[in-house]
């Protein structure tokens, strides 16, 4: 291999390596925990307890003996923790650390700043959901046929991607608002209430069903319930594609919103306002 081709190969790999490093360092810099104990307590302990609580409440209310339906819904909704409080609050966190202005005034394109931040959260969210199922298996007797695992994992990955795309939209509001807590709480509650995790969508008012179908996770929860019931993925590809489309649409809107909000923030002088 000649020196020139080596340089060319390295240069081609540069954007990918940059993407991975930006993803890792932004996660560590803003959301990363200091040790494993803290990670288990904060990132997993709280969401898992919430999952168990809602699963048991839903089962009590609807009187089913099989907890799986509610466990699946609430396990998937656990991605909200990364989506809302990780991805959703990142620009607000950048502002608090005084680094938002450095990113805005950098020559990096907005996609290059914006998207890498969601990558680690997708896998972190996926890990939380899987752990939720493990806890469900241990304490609530949740079972999943081995043959279903690959399709189930794919559905979870897509669900986490879609949830993080939702988080990107929320994060844009951090460019203008200094107090995101209200928005973050509404966003997390909407994921709990409108995705079908705890309440059957078909019993909702029609207008609320429309919102529900535009939400991330709605299709993934339905898909995962079908897979757990023994149905095959090929019979529900529309749900998988639908979730991917919702995620991509949310991401596209998020990037547009970022540019739009940035302009407004520069005009208003809101980038450094406290």
């Amino acid at each position, binding site marked *: 291999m000649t020196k020139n081709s080596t340089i060319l190969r390295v240069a081609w790999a540069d954007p990918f390596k940059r993407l991975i490093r930006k993803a890792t360092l932004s996660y560590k810099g803003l959301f990363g925990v200091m040790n494993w104990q803290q990670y288990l307590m904060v990132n997993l302990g709280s969401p898992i307890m919430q999952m168990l609580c809602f699963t048991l409440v839903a089962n009590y209310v609807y009187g089913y003996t099989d907890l799986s339906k509610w466990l699946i819904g609430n396990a998937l909704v656990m991605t909200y923790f990364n989506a809302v409080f990780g991805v959703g609050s990142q620009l607000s966190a950048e502002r608090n*650390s*005084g680094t938002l202005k450095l990113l805005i005034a950098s020559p*990096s394109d907005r996609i290059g700043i914006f998207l890498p931040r969601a990558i680690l959260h997708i896998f972190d969210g996926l890990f939380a959901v899987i752990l939720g199922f493990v806890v469900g298996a241990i304490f609530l007797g949740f079972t999943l046929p081995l043959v279903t695992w690959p399709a189930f994992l794919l559905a979870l990955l897509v669900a986490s991607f879609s949830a993080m795309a939702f988080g990107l939209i929320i994060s844009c509001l951090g460019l203008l608002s200094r107090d995101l807590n209200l928005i973050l709480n509404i966003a997390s509650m909407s994921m709990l209430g409108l995705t079908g995790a705890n309440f059957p969508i078909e019993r909702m008012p029609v207008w609320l069903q429309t919102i529900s179908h535009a939400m991330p996770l709605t299709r993934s929860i339905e898909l995962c319930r079908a897979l757990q019931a023994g149905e095959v993925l090929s019979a529900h590809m529309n749900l998988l594609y639908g979730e991917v489309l919702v995620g991509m649409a949310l991401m596209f809107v998020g990037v547009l919103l970022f540019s739009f909000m940035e302009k407004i923030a520069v005009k208003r002088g809101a980038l450094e306002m406290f």
Partner: protein
Amino acid sequence: MSQSSTKRELHIGKLPVISVKDLKRTYQTKVGLLNQEKKSVEALKGISFEIYPGEIFGLLGPNGAGKTTTIKILTTLLAPTSGEAKVFGCDAFGEEKKIRPRINFIFGGERSLYWRLSGEDNLKYFADIYKIPRAKQPELLNRLFDQVGLSDVRKHKVETYSKGMKQRLQIARALLNNPEIIFLDEPSLGLDPVGARALKQMIRDISAQGKTVLLTTHYMQEADELCDRIAIISGGEMVALDTVEGLKSKANTANASLEDVYVQLVNGEVAS
């Protein structure tokens, strides 16, 4: 407003890298919860100045004078309400993509860094943000850490750094993209004398590389030692613009220091 001829002559034939004409910025705020009342604060009331390549240009003034607002506009972080703010001949609001790769800035204080990351990871992150080729990064980072004297602590978390070390790391970050203009907004804020002296030497070194520096500070001695020309603004208006010696000659007392003339100008005791 007159300017001493000595420094002016150095700029003959050069185009300004920064040109500000009748620049105004008004902030709108709302007061009250139910019966919200809109209030306007005029941070800049029409200031004008030019900065030439290689200059260390001081922007002095009391708190709330409009120094940081001016820097925010010139660094593309804030839109002007009216007037002109050009950097390299490009509008700071509207043509920011042409300006951003060629400038960098530091705002005083300890923020503007990721405290949970090491000094090295901070620079790596911003090197990626500035799209510096990965192959060039190791050598560049080594040089910058050497330049700011942080090589031995580059792998330590920033939260363990002293204020002076954080400021030096910020300087290294600001030099990553080899900018032609560096904006320093109160870089010596809170530094001890040793740290402040080291910082001054770094600013001289940056200037010696041919870079243009726009510096704001409340330390008159620092401005006196470093700046080629100084603009004094107060209440959003330009009070004086001249070389250090030119400013001192305006004082109404003999052997006046820069601080003496600054106080007299800001208090309106002498004419600009």
